[in-house]
C-alpha cells in the first residue's frame, strides 16, 4: 500500500546534502565472502554528509551485510571503507571512533531487556562518552520526548509495544549523538498500525539533516525522504538514482521485476 502513496501528499522534507563537504561514507570496490559464498561484489558508493540513502532489493541480496560493514559488525575482505574520514581496518582505535559516530537501528530492536528504557538510553553515553549520569539522563529524556515516549522511561522493554520499542531503539542510538544513522529494515518486524509511528520518527530525524542509510521496502518513505535509492541484487548495486527516477523509470530488468514484485506483494 505504502508504495502507492503519491509524493505530492507528503510534506516536503528539505534535502540537506552537503555536496562540497568531505563525504560521510565511501565504499570502494568492497567484496565480502561468507565461507566460499560471495555476498558482496565490488560494492562502491559515496554518501555525502546529510544525504539520505535508501537501499532496497530482494531478500538475500546483501543489503544488511552492506550496512553492517559500515560500522564493522561485519568485516569486509577486499576494498576500502572510509567512514567520516576514518578508514575501517583491524585497528581497534579506528573501530571505537567509528562506532561512536555511527548509530544503528535493527529490525528486531535489540533493546537490552534487563535494563529500563532510560537505562537503555543512558548506557552508552555514560560508559562510552563518559558523560555524568545526571547529564545522560537529561539527554535521554530529551530524545525520548523527541520520539514521543518520555512517559515510558521507567518501564522495561518487554512492557512496550513493538513500535514503541523501535522508537526507543532510535532514541538510544541518537543519545550517542551520532553523525550517521544506519537502519536495517526498522519496520519489517512491526504490525502495520505501528509502522507509521516509526516512519514518522524517522522522517522527523531526516528533517534535522542527519546522514541516514536505510534498508527498507517502504517506498512511500523512500519517495518522501530519500535523496537517492540504491537497488541491490546478488551482492551488487545494480542501479541507483533519485526515488522518482528509480520507481517511475527503472532501467534494468532486475529492478523492474523487483518493483513489480513488491507492488504485487502489497
Amino acid at each position: 500500500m505504502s508504495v502507492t502513496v503519491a509524493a505530492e501528499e507528503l510534506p516536503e522534507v528539505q534535502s540537506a546534502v552537503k555536496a562540497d563537504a568531505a563525504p560521510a561514507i565511501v565504499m570502494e570496490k568492497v567484496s565480502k565472502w561468507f565461507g566460499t559464498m560471495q555476498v558482496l561484489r565490488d560494492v562502491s558508493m559515496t554518501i555525502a554528509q546529510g544525504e539520505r540513502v535508501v537501499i532496497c532489493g530482494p531478500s538475500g541480496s546483501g543489503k544488511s551485510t552492506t550496512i553492517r560493514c559500515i560500522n564493522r559488525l561485519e568485516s569486509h575482505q577486499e576494498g576500502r571503507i572510509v567512514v567520516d574520514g576514518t578508514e575501517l581496518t583491524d585497528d581497534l582505535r579506528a573501530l571505537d571512533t567509528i562506532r561512536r559516530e555511527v548509530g544503528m537501528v535493527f529490525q528486531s530492536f535489540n533493546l537490552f531487556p534487563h535494563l529500563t528504557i532510560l537505562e537503555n538510553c543512558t548506557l552508552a553515553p555514560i560508559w562510552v562518552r563518559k558523560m555524568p549520569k545526571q547529564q545522560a539522563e537529561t539527554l535521554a529524556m530529551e530524545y525520548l520526548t523527541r520520539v514521543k515516549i518520555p512517559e515510558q522511561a521507567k518501564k522495561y522493554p518487554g512492557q512496550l509495544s513493538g513500535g514503541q520499542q523501535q522508537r526507543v531503539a532510535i532514541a538510544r542510538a541518537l543519545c550517542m549523538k551520532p553523525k550517521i544513522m544506519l537502519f536495517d529494515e526498522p519496520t519489517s518486524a512491526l504490525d502495520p498500525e505501528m509502522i507509521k509511528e516509526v516512519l514518522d520518527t524517522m522522517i522527523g530525524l531526516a528533517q534535522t539533516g542527519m546522514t541516514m542509510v536505510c534498508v527498507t521496502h517502504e517506498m512511500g518513505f523512500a519517495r518522501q525522504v530519500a535523496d537517492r535509492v540504491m537497488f541491490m541484487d546478488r551482492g551488487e548495486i545494480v542501479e541507483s538514482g533519485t526515488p522518482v527516477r528509480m520507481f517511475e523509470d527503472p532501467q534494468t530488468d532486475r529492478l523492474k521485476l523487483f518493483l513489480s514484485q513488491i507492488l504485487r506483494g502489497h
Partner: protein
Amino acid sequence: MAEIAAEAGVPFAARQRPPAKVVGPAAWARRNLFGSWWSTALTLVLGYLILRFAWGFFDWAVVHAIWTVPYDAQGHANSAPCRAQMGVGACWAVIADKYRFILFGFYPYDEQWRPLVCIALFLALYAISANRRFWRRELGLVWIVTLLLILLLMHGSETLGLTVVTDDRWGGLPLTLLLATFGLALAFPLAVAVALGRRSRTLPAVRLLCVVYVELIRGVPLISLLFMSSVMFPLFMPQGVNFDNLLRAQVAIILFAAAYLAEVVRGGLQALPKGQYEAADALGLSYGRKTRLIVLPQALRIVIPPLVNTFIGFFKDTSLVLIIGIYDLLQSGRAAVDDPVWQGFGNEVYVLLALIYFCFCFAMSKYSRGLERDFSRSRRR
C-alpha cells in the same frame, strides 16, 4: 471507562469463578489420583506404602524414642537403656551427648565458641547476600572481610589472645561451610572467566587452554582429584615443601567446581540472542563493558536454575573430603559413633546430618526459585 461501567452491573467475582466441581482439592484428587481404575489402583498402593513408612518412622523416631540416658559420676553416658531399645526406638540421647563433636569435630572443646561464631557469620553472610537491596559493589568487600575474619577466628592468633588451632583440627559444620563457601565463591569467578575464554574468537590460545581445562577436569571424578591432591601431589614436590592438606583439598574443589560451573555459564552465553552482542557493539561498548553490563547480567539470569543445581551438588560433594582424612560434617558424624559407648547408633546421627544438609540445600533451591520469579517479573509485565 465506558466498558467498565457497563460491566459493573455483574459482580466480577460471580462471573469469574468457575463451578466448584472443577477446582478445589476434591476435584484435583478426582482428576489426578482417581482418573482411571489404573491410577486409582496406583494411588491406593502407593498411599498404603507411604502411610506404612511414615507410621514406621514416627513409631521409631517418636513413640518408642529415648531422649535421655543416665550419666555416671565421671560424666560418661550410659547407653544401656538405648541398647535395650535398639531397632525399636530411636535413641536421640546420642545426639544430646555428641552434638558438639558432630558440629565441631576435634576442635578444642573450650574454644568451640569460635567455630560457633563462624557458623553465625556464614549464616549472616548468606542472609545479607540473599537480599537484593544489598547487591552493590560493597558486598564484595563484605564477603572478603567476613571470610578473612572467619579464617582468623578458626585459626586464632597469639597477638589477639586466641589460641592457635591448626586446620588439621578443624571439623564439622564450619569446615563444610568453609569448603563450600570458599569453593563456590572462588570457583564462580573462575568459571565465568573460563566460559568467556572458551568463547573468545580473538584469542585462540586462551580458548584452547579453557577447553583443555574443562575437559580434563570433567573427565575425572572429584574423589580421584582429591586423592591426587593429597597423596600424589606431595610426591612431585621437592622435599620439605609442604602444602597444607585442607588447602590442597580446597583448591581441588575450586578447580573441579569451576569446570562444571563454566559449562553452565557457557550455556547462558550461548542462549543470549546474537542481537544483544550486536547492539552493544554498535553502541561502541568495549569488550569488558559489553560483557559486564549486557552479556553477563542476562546470561547469568538465564542459568540460575542449573547454576543453583550445581551449587547444591557441590555443597554435598564437599563431604567427599572424608577420603583424605578431613573431618567435615559428615565425617565428624560418622566418627561420633566410633565412640564405643555409642557404637551402632549411626541412624540417629545420619537423620540429623540429613536434616542439616537438607536445610541448606532446600534454602538454596527455594531462594533460586524466588529469584527466577522476580527476574521474569521485571522483564515482562
